[in-house]
């Protein structure tokens, strides 16, 4: 594969009892051949009537007509019962992710987009030991440090801590961890978003960023020195800012990404600004990875009513990142 920038996007099927297969088919219908991607999964799991072209090599996806979904078949033991994950299928859900990573690692696929998995189904069915998708991908990539970025047309935001109790956040924030998060964010924006000198705004942890220590000391003692050090190294990082005044339109125009201190500090603004358009991006991996910002939605699986907007946004963003990475000439693994 020489032109890795043009390789199709690999879409891992995720939990087949969820809405993944349905929204994959709907995404193809909407995108057609304009954005080449292929699904890795069991064609039996797709909604009845889905026009499928089975492929044996990702490159073939580029030649599948736009009204058919290219599928790299991966056989599962069981059919997909909507909302009721089969324990026997769990190992294959995981295997699909690993297979997709292998394809994107060797350049056969240009980027990875992942449909949602159901963590508990994988734990129960296959002893999946990772806290989530992202951690598993980081492991497959060689246990590299990664950050999660949520991106929409209106906002990019990175939570410095994610799925932990909010009470544990102040103790979980460290200068080293925050510095790493900021550097991965900066490098990711440079490499995959074509932003040469990314402007990063850092949220304070406490109300009004602590107001000089009157409402918590972490802003002054932990966050400010990390920001100051990165500025001294030439990065356009500012903060800590009072988080409540960072997300209205005029404020958002002043930065390329915000770094939040905890999950809801990042998720409240992005969900409130653009409920369906938010995409989950993993920065720090050697390859491009995006995913829709929702779960398996067992409650509506199999009913044909799932909204593909977030998956479509995730596929589109993966395509844009792929082009940006090719343009910036950053590392793209050539086919060995």
């Amino acid at each position, binding site marked *: 594969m020489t032109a890795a920038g043009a390789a199709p996007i690999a879409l891992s099927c995720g939990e087949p009892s969820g809405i993944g297969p349905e929204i994959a088919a709907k995404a193809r219908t909407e995108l057609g051949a304009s954005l080449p991607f292929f699904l890795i999964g069991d064609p039996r799991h797709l909604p009845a009537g889905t026009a499928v072209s089975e492929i044996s090599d990702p490159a073939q996806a580029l030649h599948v007509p736009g009204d058919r979904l290219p599928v790299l078949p991966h056989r599962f033991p069981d059919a997909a019962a909507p909302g009721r994950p089969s324990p026997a299928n769990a190992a294959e859900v995981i295997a699909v992710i690993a297979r997709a990573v292998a394809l994107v690692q060797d350049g056969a696929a240009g980027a990875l987009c992942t449909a949602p998995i159901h963590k508990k189904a994988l734990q129960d069915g296959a002893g999946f030991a990772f806290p989530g998708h992202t951690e598993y991908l980081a492991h497959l990539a060689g246990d590299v440090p990664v950050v999660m970025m949520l991106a929409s047309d209106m906002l990019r935001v990175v939570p410095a801590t994610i799925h932990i109790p909010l009470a544990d956040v102040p103790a979980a924030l460290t200068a080293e961890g925050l510095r790493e998060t900021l550097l991965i964010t900066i490098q990711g924006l440079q490499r995959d978003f074509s932003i040469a000198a990314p402007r990063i705004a850092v949220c304070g942890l406490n109300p009004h960023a602590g*107001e000089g220590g009157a409402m918590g000391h*972490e802003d002054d003692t932990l966050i400010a020195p990390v920001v100051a050090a990165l500025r001294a190294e030439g990065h356009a990082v500012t903060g800590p800012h009072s988080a409540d005044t*960072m997300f209205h339109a005029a404020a958002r125009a002043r930065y390329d990404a915000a770094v939040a201190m*905890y999950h809801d500090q990042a998720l409240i603004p*992005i969900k*409130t600004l653009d*409920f369906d358009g938010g995409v989950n991006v993993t920065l720090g991996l050697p390859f491009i990875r995006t995913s829709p910002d929702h779960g398996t939605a067992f409650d509506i699986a199999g009913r044909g009513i799932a909204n593909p907007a977030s998956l479509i946004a995730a596929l589109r963003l993966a395509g844009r990142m792929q082009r940006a990475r090719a343009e910036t000439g950053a590392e793209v693994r050539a086919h060995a």
Partner: protein
Amino acid sequence: MIPSLPFDDRKTLVLIQGDPAGIGPELLIKLLLQEGVREGAKLIVVGDPAIFARGETQVGETIEGVRHAPLDAAVEIAEGEILHLDMPVDGIAEVPVAQVSGPGGASSISGLHRALELTRDGIADGIVFMPFNKESMHLGGNEFTDELGYARDFFQLKGRPSEFNVADGMWNGRVTSHVAMKDVPDLLTIPRVEESIHLADRTLKAAGYDRPRIVVAAYNPHAGDGGLMGDEEIRVIGPAVEKAKLKQVNCVGPYPADTLWLKVRDGEYDAVVTMYHDQGQIAIKLLGFDRGVSVLAGLPVPVTTPAHGTAFDIAGENAANVVPALNAFTMCLNMASHRKASAGVSSDRETV
């Protein structure tokens, strides 16, 4: 639009000019120039005449029909006039723009004090104040943390008053406010959360909502995901919501905080009770940054103020947006008149 009533039927509102170094003097003058303000209510201004004049100079307009009287004068307001109760404050005329000062803070406190007296004595029906500056108030000898603490003491209230932020008909009250994030978990108790839910219920009822629909935010990401990411929802917030429901409050929750705001914006709920400062402030400032009003809830009279601060960065430049102050005025007058608080309030939405 503010309804214009026959003069004798008009409510009386007290306006306080706010910190003299900020945009308060300018906003007061701009507010008095807004259509319907002088026709909607009988108006009392409490402040130093020098600061009223400062506002007129900043805006480049003169307010007609202002009658000056001593601070403790008997309040009688004739049609067409604004009663300015003169409250001389030493050194206030010399306070520069964009600078915290003792005289500025002292005038805020004394002005608030006189306004509270006027409402307590049944002479006025509500208070609208232009932004105060906390640091000035501290320099000016205020031993209370803020205006809420002062008002609580003035009325000798047992309950905990609290600031509500309102934008586009969305109300937000919070269980904890200006405290460090690490101290929040210990402050989240069943009685405290329940009290905040009841305060939201009472406040919105006083603001004209028959049966306010209240949603209570969770504390942890994904509302704790069944206890996997914190147990405050199971241990504290959930039980508080159930207790409030048993007392006939129309409330639900705890719901994940990241996905509830669009439902609020779309009118599914009237009020959100949040657990900590940024949880509500991020969303409400994002959704209504240039329109927001703060309501001091839990007091016996309506007290409102624009949600923004003294804005020293643009003070004296005649650049301040009067909409939040006008919204604060309209809401205060509505509440004093037992109308729905959001009636006629400027909004980004088609309906409020």
